[in-house]
């Protein structure tokens, strides 16, 4: 059994509308970058994270398909699906493959291609993370579920929507410095509030937009990584936890229990506390999900997240730099790729390669990736290796 797993190569495409690129081409572009960085031609296994290729792209069997695309016929390859946590769930599988000793070098790529579909089809595909016969059946959307959470949160904790949406504003500010971001420009709270309502009280500029994108990592045991590169980043913990799929059949609609469980296990495995974390990536399909994430990851008390965000404590130069390259709102949210983007970005931060968005002295990073409304959470803790 390998002691530690390290990241030795990362790559991604720009998030956005890639009219001229297919699912395959996106995966290839991100993967080639990661393999070139790691200086590796062939791997023992490929894990592909993807949510919606069947419904949007009429394509399944992504393991074999991407192995073929990468010129690696014969390799062990499979697609991993956990709604919009598919990418991070794929990384979790790759981590376990190396930990078990079954594989030495692994390529993990998250890929999603949504802009070929009509918006109503994308909404429908997004809802496949929820209970099809009952929750989807009600006609609600992801933004709608986030809207109900937002309303309940405002009522219970006396928060205002204009405070909560500072999460989206922070994402946009950070995305302005990210050449791979879908929306690399700043916005204001006023701009969010003036944008059209999507699912009251949620406004368009507090939701994610359909996007294409792919991100990839090359993983190997730390002993190998030290020979391959000067700046390996170690995966100190990779934890996946689940919760009830119906958000309103959980103990508390405003607690992401899967996030709590995954985070507690991850902190214990990594031997750290939330205070040790220098840089964070969370899964904010709307601002409310970002606020709940900060609370359930243990960075701030339940009910205080909105204040923490409104006070600017998640800014690049503040206490807890969060979504430093734009997060789901502004880097973008190509579902099955998002969890891998988070880890690519944390790797840049921990290597000191985040350019104008660099968090000084970042040593430990945490990524929280969520499937649907929290039925799955994957937490990764990364550390710069000295």
């Amino acid at each position, binding site marked *: 059994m390998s002691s530690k797993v390290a990241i030795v190569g990362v790559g991604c495409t720009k998030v956005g509308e890639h009219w001229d690129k297919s699912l395959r081409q996106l995966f290839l572009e991100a993967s080639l970058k990661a393999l070139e960085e790691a200086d590796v031609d062939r791997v023992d296994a490929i894990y592909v994270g993807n949510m919606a290729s069947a419904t949007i792209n009429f394509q399944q069997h992504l393991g074999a398909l991407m192995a073929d695309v990468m010129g690696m016929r014969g390799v062990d390859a499979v697609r991993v699906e956990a709604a919009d946590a598919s990418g991070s769930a794929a990384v979790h599988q790759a981590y376990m493959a190396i930990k078990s000793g079954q594989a030495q070098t692994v390529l993990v790529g998250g890929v999603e291609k949504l802009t070929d579909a009509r918006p109503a089809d994308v909404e429908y595909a997004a809802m496949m993370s929820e209970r099809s016969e009952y929750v989807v059946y009600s*006609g609600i959307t992801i933004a709608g579920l986030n809207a*109900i959470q937002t309303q309940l949160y405002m009522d219970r904790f006396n928060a205002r929507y204009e405070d909560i949406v500072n999460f989206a504003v922070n994402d946009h500010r950070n995305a302005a410095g990210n050449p791979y971001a879908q929306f690399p420009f700043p916005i204001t709270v006023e701009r969010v509030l003036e944008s059209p309502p999507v*699912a009251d009280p949620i406004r368009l500029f507090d939701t994610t937009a359909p996007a294409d994108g792919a991100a990839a990592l090359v993983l190997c045991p730390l002993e190998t990584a030290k020979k391959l590169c000067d700046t390996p980043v170690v995966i100190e913990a990779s934890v996946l936890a689940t919760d009830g799929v119906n958000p309103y059949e959980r103990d508390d609609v405003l607690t992401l229990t899967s996030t709590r469980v995954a985070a507690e296990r991850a902190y214990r495995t990594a031997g750290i506390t939330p205070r040790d974390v220098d840089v964070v990536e969370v899964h904010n399909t709307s601002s409310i999900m970002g606020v709940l994430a900060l609370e359930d990851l243990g960075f701030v008390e339940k009910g205080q997240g909105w204040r923490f965000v409104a006070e600017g404590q998640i800014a690049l130069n503040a206490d807890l730099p969060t979504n430093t390259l734009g997060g789901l709102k502004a880097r973008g949210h190509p579902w099955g790729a998002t969890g891998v983007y988070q880890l690519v970005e944390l790797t840049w931060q921990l290597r000191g390669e985040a350019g104008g968005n660099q968090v000084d002295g970042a040593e430990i990073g945490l990524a929280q990736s969520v499937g649907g409304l929290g039925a799955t959470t994957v937490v990764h803790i990364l550390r710069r290796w000295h």
Partner: protein
Amino acid sequence: MSAPAVRREIPYRYRLMGTKCLNCGALFHPPQRICPKCGSKDLVEEELAWRGRLVAYTVIRRPPKGYEDYKPYIVGLIELKDGKLILAQIVDCDIEEVRPGLKLEATFRRIREDGKSGIIEYGYKFRPVIEWNWQKKPNPEK
């Protein structure tokens, strides 16, 4: 959507059948055979309460495929009288009039259609309870 896929959900969609855990008392809709809260396998069928009150709501202005004709529509989180939370569309109520605390009752409605020749799905939506004063006889002259 195939006919069997719709038919097998009829008890839950037309009659609000769920299950109740005899060990911890939790209610589930749709039914669970094993209680996800306490792990007990001791569950019985139970019809949910048809009345309740609105806890929170949203107005869907960008609907998913199959719901475009209804927009904008209200979807609410409803606490039934037996304590169960349920998510459903709120109908017979203007967007301007909907508010948390509103008393609601289940009503049988059309949910969606599968194109021009496919199945029409029915099920529960919720509407405001009309407070009826039974003492006051309707005026026959009106």
